[in-house]
């Protein structure tokens, strides 16, 4: 367990940042996934997409330099890089659904060993709506879930999602503060664990069945 939430998030964001390859088009979900942008390795140029209508999204503007006409999918002021482009929502989702986005990084309420994802509704409790998430998960070439391993000690990586799904069998990779999991045809493969945890601890905090290969690595962050 990594009780320090900030550290947990940092581990997750740093590890995912290493998945990004030079020149890729990447969409980061709101919240934890957004942090990934802070850790992109030097020399790697990532093009960030924002589903409200932009590629080449840049960092938040300095205070006082906000442009009300340039916001991200969370409604916050951002900037655009010189190589960026603005477009309408139909074009934005043509990019997303059409397979032009290389990687999408999203948070999850639950994810399961079949690659199912639930992150948009807790019936009767929280109904924010799916926004662009369903399209992103179906359309992006690679779907990475970024989330803390458990919620109040309860596993979020399940045998089968219990909440309504965002998409069926679309998740490729799950990164938590404890481990990196790859979703394969045979199930979830434990690829890496954090230096301060153990395979047994990961297993005990995961409901899903895990395939444990011989060559598990220590998470490189």
């Amino acid at each position, binding site marked *: 367990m990594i009780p320090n939430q900030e550290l947990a998030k940092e581990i997750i964001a740093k590890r995912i940042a290493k998945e990004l390859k030079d020149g890729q088009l990447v969409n980061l979900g709101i919240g934890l996934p957004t942090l990934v942008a802070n850790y992109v390795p030097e020399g790697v140029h990532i093009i960030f997409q*924002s*589903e*409200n*209508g*932009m590629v080449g999204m840049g960092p938040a503007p300095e205070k006082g330099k906000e*442009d*009300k*006409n*340039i*916001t*991200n*999918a*969370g*409604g916050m002021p951002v900037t*655009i890089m010189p190589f960026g482009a*603005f*477009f*309408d*929502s*139909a074009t*934005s*989702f043509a990019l*997303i*659904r059409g397979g032009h986005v290389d990687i999408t990084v999203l948070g999850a309420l639950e994810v399961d060993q079949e690659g*199912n994802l639930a992150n948009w509704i807790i019936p009767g409790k929280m*109904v*924010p*709506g*799916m*926004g*662009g*998430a*369903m*399209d992103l998960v*179906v*359309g992006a070439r690679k779907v990475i879930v970024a989330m803390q391993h458990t919620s109040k000690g309860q596993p979020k990586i399940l045998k089968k999602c219990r909440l*309504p*799904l*965002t*998409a*069926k*069998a679309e998740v490729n990779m799950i990164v938590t503060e404890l481990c990196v999991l790859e979703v394969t045809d045979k199930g979830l493969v434990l690829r890496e664990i954090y230096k301060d945890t153990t395979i047994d601890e990961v297993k005990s905090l995961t409901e899903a069945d895990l395939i444990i290969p011989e060559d598990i690595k220590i998470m490189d962050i």
Partner: protein
Amino acid sequence: MNKVVDIEKIKPFFKDGMTLMIGGFLACGTPEKLIDMLLELNVKDLTIIANDTSFPDRGLGRLVVNGQVKKVIVSHIGTNPETGRLMNEGKLEVELCPQGTLIERIRAGGSGLGGVLTPTGVGTIVEEGKQKLTINGKEYLLELPLRADVALIKGSIVDEFGNTFYKGTTRNFNPIIAFAADTVIVEAEEIVKVGELRPEDAMTPGVLVDYIIKGGEGFDS
């Protein structure tokens, strides 16, 4: 062919029970002066088609707070707690639609298509009640067109004929809804003479526009 009118001229168009499409993404690119007008007119039982219900104090979310809305068709309500509250109390019908599907449904409505097949939502509750088709071994949902009585648009630079240029991410749903309503009203941040915009800059061709009203320079100004 000068379509610029005083806001008084368009007030008679608005009636209880009508369906509106409203541009904007979390209030970026939303015609706030037209929202002000709707609040003043206090027309009721509106059906609103838009990306989201924005915030309680900004964008079309203000109409929700004021109890003027019977139904919304949107992708996201999470930023406006009042939407969720009224929904839970049974006072507001909420149809949640994936963002990429929503914009395609509007585009279909505006371009004479009978529907589109999307992979988004397959295997989720979004598919409930919808026809599923298998094309080349892959499942798709048939999503049907949306249209409205009136589209309310926010343009950054608008010529007197209605040719409209959108700055930054204000574009979003605006140019798509301009095709899908019987009457199209543009709130212009800046109005210019015909000929001042390049024909290539007419992201919304003026032929689609019925009326132009002069707006402010955005919510904060």
